[in-house]
């Protein structure tokens, strides 16, 4: 136990450096993924044939293939067609696209769970369809999507650990770096696990607070 605390304290500065990268990856990917998710989610819900088909293919293909393969395509395969990306850029792009597909499904689910009467009411008072979507349906849908969105954020934080495999110095990579020097593999990776655990718990708690704050009474 004392040995573990020793290892933890010594590894802590390195792991914190890694955590910065982990959070950078997770935050930027969840934000870009959110934009992708809203666009794809809306076209999956309200799109005409063309945009519906296109967004469905996007969602199915991205959700049907592993994140690691997507990352490898962006990092190892794109240089072949003349696009060389740094490890961080490749990670952020592939995580954003991956997360975008999942978020699109969550947003679509939330849009469908908004009472159809709301849309009809908005149209009947003379709003255009676009106005109705933006002012009536989306605000309600976005509140409903918070729990699954929290899940997605947690998933994303955990999945950023694969960026280690293309050489981003995030939490996992720093752990590997420290462990390969002091050979305390068990204690170092347990420390890494504890840090992930703490971050995930803080985020889950934070979002459940936000969810309570923005809840609409009666809807």
């Amino acid at each position, binding site marked *: 136990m004392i040995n573990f605390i020793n290892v933890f304290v010594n590894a802590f500065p390195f792991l914190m450096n890694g955590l910065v990268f982990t959070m950078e990856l997770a935050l930027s990917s969840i934000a870009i993924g959110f934009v992708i998710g809203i666009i794809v989610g809306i076209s999956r819900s309200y799109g005409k044939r063309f945009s519906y088909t296109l967004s469905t293919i996007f969602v199915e293909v991205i*959700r049907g293939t592993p994140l690691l393969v997507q990352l490898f395509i962006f990092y190892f395969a794109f240089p072949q067609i003349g696009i060389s990306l740094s490890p961080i850029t490749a990670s952020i792009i592939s995580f954003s696209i991956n997360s975008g597909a999942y978020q699109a499904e969550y947003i679509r*689910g939330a849009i469908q769970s908004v009472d159809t009467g709301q849309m009809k009411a908005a149209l009947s008072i003379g709003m255009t369809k676009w106005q109705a979507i933006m002012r009536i349906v989306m605000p309600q849908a976005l509140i409903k999507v918070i729990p699954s969105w929290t899940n997605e954020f947690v998933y994303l934080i*955990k999945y950023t650990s694969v960026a280690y495999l293309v050489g981003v110095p995030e939490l996992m990579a720093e752990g590997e770096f420290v462990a390969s020097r002091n050979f305390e593999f068990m204690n170092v990776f347990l420390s890494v696990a504890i840090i992930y655990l703490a971050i995930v718990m803080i985020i889950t708690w934070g979002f459940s607070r936000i969810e309570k704050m923005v809840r609409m009474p009666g809807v």
Partner: protein
Amino acid sequence: MDFLSTLKVLLDGTIVTVELTVTSFIIAFSMAIVVSLAQVYGNTPLKVIATIYERILRSIPLLVVMFILFFGLPSFGIRFDPFTAAILSLGLCSSAYQSQIFRGAILSVPKGQILAAQSIGMNGRQTFFHITLPQALRFAVAPLTNEFTIVLKDTSFAYALGVTELLREGTYIVSTTYEPLLIYLFCAAIYFTVTFSTNTVVKRVEKKFALPGFEFRGERA
């Protein structure tokens, strides 16, 4: 390397991927049933233990669990080969998610059904096996399929331990042919085919075993 031998190597990798998926899914399935029963029907200490187990495993990245099992445990004298370590860690992580699926499924059986069973004189065990379980299993099919495809996709993490699954085989070919785009896209296509066909088959099965009037109308998790 010609096309046919490339295809053969990738298919070998696919077989390993499927082996990893099926074995770890079965392990996770059996563990998840125990955990979910403890969470729903257990006394307070059991509930607490099951909840802690599930929370911790759902918060730690699969890659970290793999590294703890593969690189960490040898310091306690427990050694796994990469394949076993990958199966165990996939199983552990997935069991936490599956336990939540079962818990949700058990809890979504209407309360009236259980009261009705008790009122015609069934005891607790009979109620569970004849009333709750058959319905809960049907509720669980859709989210379980989803979880199965997640496990399938996560087997690609075993790449990091050196298991020669699909992605690792793909990387071997890339390192000799220098055709990363083609090979990785082909790997992606294989993964997609497997997940897509699994989904299609399960949807059929689900329809076949649906109880008329008791279809689960929730969203697919």
